[in-house]
């Protein structure tokens, strides 16, 4: 990823980060879309796994800075998810919307599971509820928003060079 490609990806990344801190509070849904994770996945599939892990770590710390009780949890979860996404990127090279939706869904769900386990706030049935219900809902919403983002930002995120 060099030159124009990097610039385009950076632009899309900034837009998504902005959306995370503007659109999400406006929507205020119970199951929130995670634009930070969408941005991370979009970057992760365009860089090496190590770089993706570092980007995930940084973004995780940024997210953690507002949640002191779980400082480090998001960093860990994003590093792992970004690394995995980058490592699996060959699978998702295809420009298939359904496949990308699954990619966003699994990424968000995995992030939530790792985060919840690291955070250790929930246990037992409550944790199961969070993992199976709310994380799944949030992952579904994120996948939907990710698809919308891909459709809207398609001119920017063209992957013909890959």
């Amino acid at each position, binding site marked *: 990823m060099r030159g124009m490609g990097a610039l385009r990806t950076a632009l899309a990344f900034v837009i998504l980060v*902005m959306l995370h801190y503007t659109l999400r509070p406006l929507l205020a849904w119970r199951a929130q879309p995670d634009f930070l994770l969408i941005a991370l996945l979009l970057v992760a599939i365009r860089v090496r796994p*190590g770089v993706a892990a*570092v980007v995930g770590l940084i973004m995780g710390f940024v997210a953690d800075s507002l949640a002191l009780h779980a400082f480090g949890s998001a960093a860990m979860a994003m590093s792992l998810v970004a690394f995995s996404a980058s490592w699996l990127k060959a699978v998702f090279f295809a420009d298939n919307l359904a496949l990308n939706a699954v990619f966003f869904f699994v990424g968000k769900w995995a992030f939530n599971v790792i985060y919840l386990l690291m955070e250790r706030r929930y246990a037992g049935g409550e944790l199961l509820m969070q993992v199976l219900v709310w994380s799944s809902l949030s992952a579904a919403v994120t996948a939907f928003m990710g698809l919308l983002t891909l459709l809207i930002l398609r001119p920017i995120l063209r992957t013909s060079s890959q």
Partner: protein
Amino acid sequence: MAAPARSGSRRDSLVLAACVALALVARVVPEPMKEPAATSLRRTVVAPLVALQRDAELSRKAFLEREEIARVRDSVALDGMMDAAIRRENEQLRRTVGLGARLRWGFVPAEILHGQSIGEEYTVTLSAGSRAGARPYSPVVAADGIVGMVKTVDPGMSIAILWSHPDFRVSAMAADGSAFGIVAARLASPGPRNLLELRGVPMRSTLKPGTMIWSSGMGGVFPRGIPLGTVIAEDKQPMEVWARTYILKPAVNPADVDAVMILRPERQQGGLQGIWASPASVDSAVRRIVAAGDSAARQAAADSARRAAAADSTSRAATPAPPPAPDSGTARRTPPAPAAARRDTIRRDTTTRRAAPRDTTRSTP
């Protein structure tokens, strides 16, 4: 190509391990050590993002409050409208209570159920039926005057035609007895259809605008002394050549009336003179009722009014009738006593004469 790929993969794994280790350290270090790192992040990288988030949340709050404000404003407006309606209904009920106090006997109170469909513009359903004492051809009156006439009666309800019905007729007279005629709904196609007209007035009788028109009691259905309306103007294009026709503003707008009184047959025979003739005493009675704070006070006020009215009627019966008041206002509001001579006069003067009672409907069975 395989060796660089493997080394690259190993390097990525090492980077991942380092990231995971850093995250774990950040997770397990004590709170005082986390706080400086988090604070420095919040004050540098995250600050603009947090500002964005705060603005977004403020925008959302403002949006929600706008909806709340609009909702409260609408509720207040609705309450205001309902308040006005309740005030109007209260006023009507007070006036109806005043009418009931004046009638004293021989009436059935009823509520009007206004019809909403086509064909029900001229009829209303009344909540009182034959069980309550309503009978066909019973006059329906409100505090301001005549409303209509009961047409059909069921045990629990009855249907009345309004004065706006094409078949509605009342034998009428001017307040000073100077003119007699038949009042019917004004159905002329040009102009409003919410007016009455006084037909068959002798050519020699002229009525000034503002003259009150009352029922004359000649037809046998409507007793004498019920207000029908006030003269607005003379109709310059009457159907009759030898008689005048006057346009009247009705005393009652049926659409504004919710509570009425159905006069029973014995009351029709007893007459209604004086019932609508003393608005001042009625208003004072109503004021007394309104001023009474509780039911006991209302009851006491009603009892005293009843006693005073009874004493007044006794004294009136014992003493001869006083001469008519000199001022025209009082004379206009007071219907004259029935006079056979006037009846004869009008019979001579009118060009059209009917064998049937004047204030009956065309569809009389």
